[in-house]
């Protein structure tokens, strides 16, 4: 337990199990997953469809409740929080980037970025927001509504929104899934920059090896278990491991 309180971890999961259904129809989405996410690291979670990568992300972010095991954001045990506690956690310690951008269509780009702060009634850190807006390169687009922005621009707004509250960790769920490759690499470069230059922690679920190659580390999942890990990944290295994974499935 004590290493869970290790100050160097932004988030961690311990013996995490998630079972959907019960009896003979029970599906083990996660089976005894233990994984750690150090601070100021960019971690990608990969795996074939049904490997449990999205479930892991949802449990880590407190959006889904695990059947057993623990999740820590910093040193807070997420699994012990009630709805109000989870809401507070999401306000103060977590940022989200979704595949489908999920911006509020009635708000301008600027209002979307400051939305979490407005909801929490927190005073924005001007200098921090300034640096974010410069990083996402949207200064001349702040007054626009989402419908007037391109997909890449919308996702950059979403990134800035996720970072606005200086969260302990940002969870990204297939952030490039709805983008063309050029916009996608812009967004990924941005996420990487956040980690390197601003010291943020990002956990990203993806099935795209090119996207995962921007991360510091790739965690591979299969059938609800952590099966492999790759540090300083390259695209070809990832493809190789994935092929091994597929072969492993075939070999069983």
């Amino acid at each position, binding site marked *: 337990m004590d290493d869970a309180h290790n100050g160097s971890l932004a988030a961690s999961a311990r013996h995490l199990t998630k079972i959907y259904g019960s009896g003979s129809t029970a599906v083990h989405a996660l089976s005894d997953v233990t994984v750690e996410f150090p601070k100021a690291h960019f971690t990608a979670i990969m795996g074939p469809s049904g490997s449990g990568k999205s479930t892991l992300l*949802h449990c880590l972010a407190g*959006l*889904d409740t695990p059947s057993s095991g623990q999740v820590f954001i910093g040193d807070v045990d997420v699994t012990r929080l009630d*709805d*109000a506690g989870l*809401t*507070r956690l*999401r*306000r*103060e310690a977590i940022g*989200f980037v*979704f*595949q*489908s951008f*999920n911006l*509020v*269509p*009635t*708000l301008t780009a600027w*209002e979307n970025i400051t*939305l*979490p702060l*407005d*909801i*929490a*009634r927190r005073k924005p850190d001007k200098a921090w927001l300034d640096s974010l807006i410069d990083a996402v390169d949207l200064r001349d687009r702040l007054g626009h509504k989402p419908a007037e922005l391109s997909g890449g621009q919308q996702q950059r707004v979403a990134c800035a*929104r996720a970072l606005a*509250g200086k969260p302990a960790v940002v969870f990204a769920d297939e952030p490039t899934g709805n983008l063309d490759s050029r916009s996608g690499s812009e967004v990924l470069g941005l996420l990487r920059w956040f980690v390197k230059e601003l010291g943020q922690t990002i956990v990203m679920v993806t099935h795209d090896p090119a996207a995962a190659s921007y991360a510091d580390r790739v965690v591979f999942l299969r059938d609800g278990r952590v099966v492999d890990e790759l540090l300083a990944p390259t695209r070809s290295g990832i493809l190789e491991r994935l092929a091994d994974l597929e072969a492993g499935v075939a070999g069983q």
Partner: protein
Amino acid sequence: MLRASIRNLVAHKVRLVLTVLAVMIGVAFLVGTQIFTDTVKATFDELLGRTSKNLSVVVREKSDFGASDFGASRQPIPESLVATVEAVPGVAHAVGSVTGFATLVTADGRAVVPKVVGPPTLATSWTPSNLSSLRFVAGRGPRGPGEVAIDKAAADRFHLGLGDRVTVQTEGAPMAATVVGIVTVGASSNLAGAVLSVFDPATAQRVVGRPGYVNEIDVEAEPGITQDELAARISAVLPAGVEAVTAKTVTKENTAAISKALGFFNTFLAIFAGVALFVGLFIIVNTFTMLVAQRTRELALLRAVGASRAQITLAVLGEAAAVGGVAATLGIAFGTVVAFGVRGLLHAVGVGLPSGPLVMNGRTVLLGYLVGILVTVSAALGPALRAARIPPVAALRDVVALPVRSLRIRAIVGAALLGIGAMVAVGGWLAGSKGGGAAARVGIGAVALIVGMWLASPVLSRPVIHALGAPLVAVRGVIARLARSNAIRNPRRTAATASALMIGLALVSMLAVLTSSTKASIASLVDRNLGADFVLQSEGFDGFSPDVAHRAATLPGVETVAETRVGRARVNGKTEFLAAVSPTIGSVVGLTMTSGSLTTLDDGALLVSRSRAQAAKLTTGSTVEVEFPDRTRERLRIGGVYEDNALLANGGAGYLVSLSTYERHYAVQRDVIVYVEAAPGHQEEVSAGLARALQPYPQIHVRSQAEYKKSILTQVDQIVGLITGLLGVALVIAVLGIANTLALSVYERIREIGLLRAVGMTRRHVRSMVRLEALVIAVFGALVGVVLGSLIGLALVGASGNQIDHLVVPFGQLAVYVLVAAILGLLAAAGPAWQAGRRPVLTAIATE
């Protein structure tokens, strides 16, 4: 196609429940009104028909003076005609009957009056024969002076039984009598709410009629002779001015008179049903727009696999017809409850209707279905046509939006209608002083204004809601900002939702302005003009004996007593309302003569109000021919012209004659209102004196100026209360509409709400957001309605000319309406808000 439609209907139960409810309420009131009318007709047909088994022909005075009121306004005919009629071949039996007004006073000094203001206290004669509709449920028929029978409803209410002593008050000296019988009218415990006292013919003639005269002769035919044939035979022997009509005709007349007496309720309920259906229209439009929007992909798929545009339209219309059919069925069922309710209400106010089964005609059922289905289908027409315009390719797209039409044309048409409506209404307003159709013009203008406002409201909603939301945003921050922007996101839908509320509140506000102004005008009228210290009145319109005025006149300290009687007469061939007054009337009601003099009344002159003089082109000094109900004609000199005065005879008579002129031409001498003026400083003494002197007349209310004013204002308030109550139901329908719209908004924004939760919004915040959205929509609709309604009310006040001479906008009351609408809006949001807050964050944001 059909299977898809049915599945779809079942899948959207909640939404449809709201729609069905809205249509149902409208249909229920419509059907309820119809059932009630038919039931009343049927019971009276039966009631009167049972007697007409024996009754064949009725002989009576031929009246041309708009006689309807139970025949009481007809002049009596000579009793000798009974023998004449009986001699006609084919007549088996003829009975003369006497009818008039009499009030009974119980031994402990209570007046036996109807339960509610309106129905008269009638006196009638009874002759043992099979022609009478009276049935004795206790005791026997009255024989000779000092015996009376009374109706069962009154006996029950005043705990009168056989052997009880009562005093019979008529125009002459009071008569002591003993109750010897209790009667019902057919199966009914009273005659449409009237109090009935029954005497033997000679006594009836003495107390309420004239010896030697009867009001009508009831005739029984010998077997084998038709009513028409007998009526024709009798007519041949009758003198001029007397007619013989068949029992069938009389039954029809009586039924019509009773229906007309109860017509107030019916008209009112029918108008209300209309308002409810109209408001319901908006909800239906919204619902079907939503159903189509939610199914865009499914409909596109149907198009892709070969369904034609017409098929799509028909499918949606078919669904509407099914919804309308279900709603109509429920509405028809619920309509019987409404009919029961109306009967119960009438019973509560003392109108004893026979408790027979309710009559549901095929026509009523047909009407219910026709209206229910037609309203629903026509409201769904727009959405159905839009559904057909969904391109097949929409099935393949991820996000589909229905083709949205520009609001520009709608706004332009709306603005144009608003302009025209305003012009017409203001025209009516300004025409008010000249009279003649001014109110109708305002009415037409009002309809244009309301429709125009409905059309323009989507465009109007943006700035208004933005402004309305500003203080909320200041207090609640981003939650309120989101709520506000959600409210104006779909202006068409917001406007339709708010319009339902707008119409209800426009009507209520119009009423508020109208009645506040009326009340202020009445109050000032009484303050300005009423010189009398005391006003003596009985409830109802049948008046009381002149003995009351004579008693008042002899009291010490009384300076002036003015009597008023009313009647109809034909002036220059036109039937007019006329009042007979004492010349002292001038000071007590503040009558102003524009020419001539009040004292000419005593010389037998006729006085004319200014408006009548203008209309009939009469001038002081000229003469005019007046025909009285006793069929005599007199050329009367116009003795003067007076300013219209609403205090005269309870509402402003157009013509005045002296009491002696009235006495010469009218069979019944009853005062409707008596004014008493005390000598300065003797008010207390007169008040005490009146209380003592009028002890035998417990039905007379002695009211001081303040009490008189209050009694009139209370009547206005009662009517307003009733109307407001019914319009309240329209507001409830509007609230259903708000709930409906919000439920859809929440449904459409599930993912957005999930996102807000993900970035830190609490459940409470989400619920607040939905509630605030409802709040701004409700307040928007309410404000527009209140403003529009107040302006229409003001125009109506203006159009009334001098009748309502005070413009009063009851700001406090209107503010309460807006507040109530706001609270109702919040209530409507409770369900959708709970739904929105309940969604787990994950399901809300997870991609499909």
